[in-house]
C-alpha cells in the first residue's frame, strides 16, 4: 500500500516533470472550465455576462496563486527542483565563465591523471583474462625455486618439460591442463631480422582456455606429441590483420619461423591476446615442435631449462586450496622421476625437496604486473594527492565566490528559502562542475594511459595492454567526481548559507577588514595545500635525482659509443667444429671496418639484466668455501672495447685455444673476497659442476678493475671472465660489442656491409649499448617523469591557491592598508607585510609537510637508488622551491597593496 503510494506519486511527478507543458495546459483548461461554469451559474442568478465573468474570476482569488498551489501538488517535486537547480546552476556557471573553465580544467587534470593510472592498474591487476570462466583457472608452480639450477626464461616460477609431462599425467584436480612459454621467432629468411612474439603451447591450451578459432582450427592434444615435426601454427587476430591484411584464405599458407616453413592452421578471435597480461602473441606453435624448430638446442628433454608455465581449469568441487594440497602431495614422485642425470651433486637435495603448489590464475600471469604493480599504486596515491590539492584550490575559489554571493543568499533566505534547499542548490552546482571535470578527465585519461604504455614499451619488449574503459574504471571516475564534489563543495555551501540575513543585507557588510573566521578556514586550506605539495615535490625530487644518479653513475665501463651486434648463424648450418674459426674470422672482418676502434665477442651483454652465476673457490680450498660469482665468456679485446682497465697480468689472446690450459681473468672484488686480497694472477680457481659442465680448474692470467655486471643498480661483485674460444660448446648465436671512434650509429652501416659481404645468410641486429641500458631504467624513468609532472602540477596549484588567498586578502583590506599608508607606512612596508604573510602560510605548510614527507612508505625506498627516502638535500630543495613559490605568489598582491592610494581607499567607504 505504502509502496504503491510512493510508486504512484513518483509516476505522477515524473509525468509532471516530463510532460510539464501538457500537464500545465490541462490544468489551465480545467480551471477555465470552472470559471465558465461559475460564470454561467452567476448569469443564472441574474448577473450580466460581463459581471458574471468578473465575479467568477474574482472568486478564484489570485489566479496565479491558485495555479501555483496546484503546481506545487502536481509538479515534479524533488525531480522538478533538481531540474530547476540544474538549470539555475548551468546559468550561474555560464555567467561565471572564467571560474567554470578553471574549475573544470583543474578537475579534468586531477581526475584524468587518477583515471589513467587506475586504468593501467585495472588492466594489469584487476581485470581477468578475456577467456571463458577465468575464475576457474589455477596456476601450478614450484613454491620455492631456490632448489633449482639451470637457465630460466622468466623471473616468474616455471617448470622443465620433463616435469610438465609428469604433471600433465596426474592432473587430477583439472578438467583440462596446459603449459606455455613465450619466445620470439625470426620471421625473415635473411638480412636484418624481423621478430614475431611467439608462444609455445601444449595441445590443450586453447581448448582449456575456451578460445574458439575465428578461422580454421586450434591445436588439440593430437597435435602436441613427441616427434610431431612442425604440425602448424595458430596466429592471433592482430597478426592476421597486420601480416596478411585479414586475408580469409590465410589457413594453409606458410610462415617462416626461425627458417622453418610452418603451415598456418587457424586464427584466434580478436579478444584473445594470450595468457600473459602486458604481452600479446603473434604466433602459437605446439611445444613438441621445438625439436624441429630449434634443432639440437631444443629443451624437450632438458632437466635444467626452466621455461614452462602450467595452468589448468579446476573440476567442479575442487578449490584452489585443495588442488595446492594435491600437487604438494604428488611432488616427491614427480621430482624423483625427473631428476636430470647431469645435475650437480650439491644441488640434488634441493631439487628433490622442491614442491609444487597451486594458485588462482584468473588474471593471468604478468611480468608487467610483478614489476609495475607497486609503482602504479604509489603513482595512484600521488595522483590522488594532486586531486586533493586541486580540491583545496576549488574549495578556496568556492569560498571566495560564496562571500561575493552573500547578498544573494541573504536575499533568498529572507524571502523564505530554506537553508537545506540553498545548500542543495549550491551542491548541485559543484556536482555539475565535478561531473564536467570527470567527463573531460575520462577523455584525457585515454590519451594519458596510452602515453604511459608507450613510456614502458621498448623495441625488444613491446608492451601490450588492453586499455578498456570498463565498468570498474567508470565507477572509479564517478566515485572520484562525487568525492571531489563533496570535498570542494560541501563546506563552502554550508558556510555560504550560514549568514544571518539581516547582517549580510547591511550595506554589503564591509568593515575595516573582512570576516576573520571564514578567512581562517581558507588559510587552513592553503596550509594543507602547501603541506601536500611539499610531500609531492619531495617525492618528485627523490625519483628524478634517483634516475639522475643512475644515468650519471660510473659503472666501471664506458657505455657511450658501444654498439651491440646480435648475430644469428643458424641458417649457415655450420658443423660444431667449424663455428669457432668462423666466428674468429667474422670478428677480424668487423675489426677491420673503418671507424671501429675495438670489437669483442661476449656471452653476457653487461648492464642489461642478463646474468650467469656459479659458485667458485680457490684451488686448494674446498667447495664449502665456494662463493657465488658473476661469470662471462669473452674474446680478447673485451676489456679494451668497454674501457675496463687491466691492472695486472694479461688479456686473453690467440694462444688460449680450446686445447690450451683453461684460463680466466678476474676482477678486483674477486681478488679481495675470493682470493683473499693477494694479486691472484698465477693462482688457480675452481668452478662448481653445472648441469652442462663438470667441475673445472682455471688458471688466473689477468686482473681487471671492477665494473657493474647485471645492472646499474647492483654493487660490484666478484667476477670471473672465461675465454670465449675455450668454451666447451660454440653456439650458433653471437653477440659482438663494437667500440666506434665517433658516434655509435656511425659504424653500423660499415659493419652491416662487412658481415653481409662475409656471408649473406647471417642475420644481424644492432642496438647501442646505451639505449639498451636505458631500457632497463624504464621503471625509474616512469617514476621520475610522472612524479616530476605531478610535483610540478602540485607546485602550480599551490601557487595559484596562495595567490588567490593573498590577493583576496589584499582586496578585503584595502581600507586598512589605506589607513596604514595615510599614517605614514611606506610602500615597501606594506609590500613586506603582505609578503611576510604569504611566507608565513608556506612556512606553516612546510612545518606540517616535512614530517609527512619523512613518513613516506617503505615502498618508496625500494624504488630509489643511492638515496634514502629522507634525503636531506631533497627535503631542503623542496622546501626552498615552495618558499620561492610563496614569494612569487605573494609578489603581485603585495605590489598591488603597496600601490593603494590612501585617499581613494578611505573615500571608498
Amino acid at each position, binding site marked *: 500500500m505504502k509502496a*504503491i*503510494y510512493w510508486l*504512484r*506519486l513518483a509516476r*505522477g511527478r515524473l509525468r509532471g516533470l516530463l510532460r510539464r507543458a501538457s500537464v500545465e495546459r*490541462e*490544468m489551465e*483548461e*480545467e*480551471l477555465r*472550465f*470552472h470559471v*465558465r*461554469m*461559475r460564470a*454561467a451559474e452567476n448569469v443564472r442568478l441574474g448577473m450580466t455576462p460581463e459581471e458574471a465573468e468578473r465575479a467568477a474570476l474574482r*472568486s*478564484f*482569488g*489570485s489566479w496565479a*496563486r*491558485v495555479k501555483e*498551489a*496546484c503546481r*506545487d*501538488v*502536481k509538479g515534479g517535486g524533488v525531480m522538478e527542483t533538481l531540474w530547476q537547480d540544474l538549470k539555475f546552476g548551468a546559468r550561474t556557471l555560464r555567467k561565471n565563465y572564467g571560474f567554470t573553465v578553471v574549475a573544470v580544467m583543474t578537475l579534468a587534470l586531477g581526475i584524468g591523471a587518477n583515471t589513467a593510472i587506475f586504468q593501467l592498474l585495472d588492466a594489469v591487476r584487476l581485470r581477468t583474462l578475456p577467456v571463458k570462466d577465468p575464475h576457474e583457472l589455477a596456476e601450478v608452480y614450484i613454491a620455492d625455486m631456490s632448489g633449482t639450477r639451470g637457465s630460466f626464461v622468466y623471473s616468474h616460477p616455471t617448470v622443465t618439460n620433463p616435469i610438465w609431462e609428469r604433471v600433465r599425467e596426474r592432473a587430477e584436480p583439472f578438467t583440462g591442463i596446459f603449459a606455455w612459454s613465450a619466445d620470439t621467432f625470426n620471421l625473415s629468411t635473411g638480412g636484418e631480422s624481423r621478430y614475431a612474439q611467439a608462444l609455445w603451447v601444449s595441445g590443450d591450451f586453447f581448448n582449456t582456455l575456451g578460445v574458439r578459432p575465428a578461422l580454421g582450427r586450434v591445436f588439440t592434444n593430437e597435435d602436441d606429441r613427441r616427434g610431431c615435426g612442425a604440425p602448424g601454427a595458430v596466429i592471433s587476430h592482430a597478426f592476421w590483420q597486420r601480416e596478411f591484411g585479414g586475408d580469409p584464405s590465410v589457413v594453409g599458407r606458410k610462415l617462416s619461423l626461425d627458417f622453418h616453413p610452418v603451415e598456418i592452421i587457424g586464427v584466434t578471435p580478436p579478444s584473445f591476446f594470450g595468457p600473459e597480461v602486458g604481452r600479446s602473441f603473434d604466433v602459437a606453435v605446439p611445444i613438441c615442435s621445438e625439436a624441429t624448430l630449434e634443432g639440437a638446442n631444443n629443451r624437450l628433454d632438458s632437466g635444467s631449462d626452466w621455461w614452462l608455465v602450467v595452468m589448468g581449469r579446476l573440476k567442479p568441487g575442487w578449490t584452489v586450496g585443495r588442488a595446492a594440497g594435491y600437487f604438494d602431495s604428488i611432488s616427491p614422485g614427480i621430482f624423483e622421476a625427473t631428476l636430470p642425470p647431469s645435475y650437480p651433486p650439491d644441488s640434488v637435495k634441493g631439487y628433490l625437496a622442491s614442491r609444487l603448489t597451486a594458485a588462482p590464475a584468473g588474471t593471468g600471469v604478468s611480468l608487467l604486473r610483478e614489476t609495475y604493480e607497486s609503482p602504479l599504486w604509489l603513482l595512484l596515491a600521488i595522483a590522488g594527492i594532486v586531486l586533493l590539492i586541486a580540491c583545496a584550490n576549488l574549495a578556496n575559489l568556492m569560498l571566495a565566490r560564496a562571500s561575493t554571493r552573500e547578498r544573494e543568499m541573504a536575499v533568498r533566505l529572507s524571502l523564505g528559502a530554506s537553508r537545506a534547499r540553498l545548500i542543495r542548490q549550491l551542491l548541485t552546482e559543484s556536482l555539475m562542475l565535478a561531473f564536467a571535470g570527470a567527463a573531460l578527465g575520462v577523455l584525457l585519461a585515454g590519451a594519458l594511459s596510452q602515453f604511459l604504455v608507450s613510456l614502458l614499451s621498448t623495441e625488444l619488449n613491446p608492451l601490450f595492454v588492453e586499455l578498456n574503459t570498463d565498468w570498474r574504471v567508470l565507477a572509479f571516475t564517478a566515485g572520484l567526481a562525487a568525492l571531489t564534489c563533496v570535498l570542494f563543495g560541501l563546506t563552502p555551501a554550508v558556510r555560504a548559507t550560514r549568514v544571518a540575513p539581516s547582517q549580510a543585507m547591511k550595506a554589503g557588510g564591509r568593515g575595516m577588514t573582512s570576516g576573520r573566521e571564514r578567512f581562517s578556514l581558507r588559510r587552513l586550506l592553503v596550509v594543507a595545500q602547501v603541506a601536500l605539495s611539499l610531500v609531492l615535490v619531495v617525492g618528485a625530487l627523490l625519483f628524478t635525482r634517483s634516475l639522475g644518479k643512475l644515468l650519471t653513475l660510473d659503472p666501471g665501463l664506458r657505455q657511450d659509443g658501444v654498439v651491440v651486434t646480435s648475430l644469428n648463424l643458424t641458417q649457415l648450418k655450420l658443423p660444431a667444429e667449424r663455428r669457432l674459426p668462423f666466428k674468429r674470422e667474422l670478428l677480424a672482418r668487423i675489426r677491420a671496418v673503418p671507424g671501429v676502434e675495438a670489437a669483442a665477442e661476449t656471452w653476457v651483454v653487461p648492464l642489461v639484466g642478463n646474468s650467469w652465476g656459479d659458485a667458485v673457490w680457490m684451488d686448494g680450498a674446498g667447495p664449502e668455501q665456494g662463493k657465488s660469482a658473476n661469470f662471462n665468456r669473452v674474446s680478447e679485446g673485451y676489456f679494451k672495447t668497454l674501457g675496463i682497465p687491466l691492472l695486472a697480468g694479461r688479456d686473453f689472446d690467440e694462444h688460449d685455444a680450446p686445447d690450451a690450459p683453461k684460463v680466466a681473468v678476474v676482477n678486483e672484488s674477486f681478488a679481495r673476497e675470493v682470493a683473499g686480497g693477494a694479486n691472484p694472477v698465477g693462482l688457480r680457481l675452481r668452478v662448481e659442476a653445472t648441469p652442462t659442465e663438470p667441475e673445472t680448474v682455471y688458471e688466473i692470467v689477468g686482473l681487471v678493475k671492477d665494473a657493474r655486471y647485471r645492472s646499474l643498480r647492483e654493487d660490484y661483485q666478484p667476477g670471473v671472465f672465461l675465454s670465449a674460444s675455450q668454451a666447451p660448446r660454440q653456439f650458433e648465436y653471437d653477440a659482438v660489442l663494437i667500440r666506434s671512434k665517433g658516434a655509435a650509429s656511425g659504424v653500423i652501416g660499415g659493419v652491416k656491409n662487412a658481415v653481409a659481404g662475409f656471408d649473406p645468410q647471417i642475420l644481424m641486429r644492432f642496438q647501442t649499448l646505451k639505449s639498451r641500458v636505458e631500457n632497463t631504467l624504464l621503471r625509474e624513468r616512469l617514476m621520475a617523469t610522472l612524479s616530476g609532472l605531478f610535483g610540478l602540477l602540485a607546485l602550480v596549484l599551490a601557487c595559484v591557491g596562495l595567490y588567490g588567498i593573498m590577493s583576496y586578502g589584499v582586496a578585503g583590506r584595502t581600507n586598512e592598508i589605506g589607513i596604514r599608508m595615510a599614517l605614514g607606512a611606506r610602500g615597501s612596508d606594506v609590500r613586506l607585510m603582505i609578503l611576510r604573510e604569504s611566507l608565513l602560510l608556506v612556512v606553516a605548510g612546510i612545518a606540517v609537510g616535512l614530517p609527512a614527507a619523512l613518513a613516506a612508505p617503505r615502498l618508496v625506498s625500494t624504488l630509489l637508488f643511492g638515496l634514502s627516502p629522507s634525503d636531506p638535500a631533497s627535503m631542503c630543495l623542496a622546501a626552498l622551491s615552495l618558499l620561492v613559490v610563496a614569494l612569487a605568489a605573494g609578489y603581485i598582491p603585495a605590489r598591488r597593496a603597496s600601490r593603494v592610494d590612501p585617499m581613494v581607499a578611505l573615500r571608498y567607504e
Partner: protein
Amino acid sequence: MPKQDAKLLQGTLDMLILKALSLGPLHGFGVGQRIMQMSEDALRVEEGSLYPALYRIEQRGWIASEWGVSDNNQRARFYSLTRQGRKQLQVEEENWERLAAAVFKVMQAT
C-alpha cells in the same frame, strides 16, 4: 496551534470531496456544487483549495480522473472514486463520527 487546525480542515475537505464523489463521477465545479448542496449552502469550498486538494487526492490514488463532456457539452475533467478511495472514505467517516461525537460531548458538558 494554528498549524493543527489547518491540517484538520484539509483532512476534512478531503473527506468531503470523497463523500461528494461517492455518489458518482463529477467535474471539479460539480464537486464544489455538490458539497454546497449537501450542506444546504452552509459549506462553500474555495476554488483555491478545491483544485490542489483534488490533485493531491488523485496522486494518493483515492480518485481517478478522465476527460469527458459536461451536461452543457463542454470538455471537462471528471473525477471518480477508486476502490481505494471508497475504503479511505469509510475510514475517514468512522474517524469523523468519533471525533464529532467527542467534540459534541465536550461542548455539551457544563
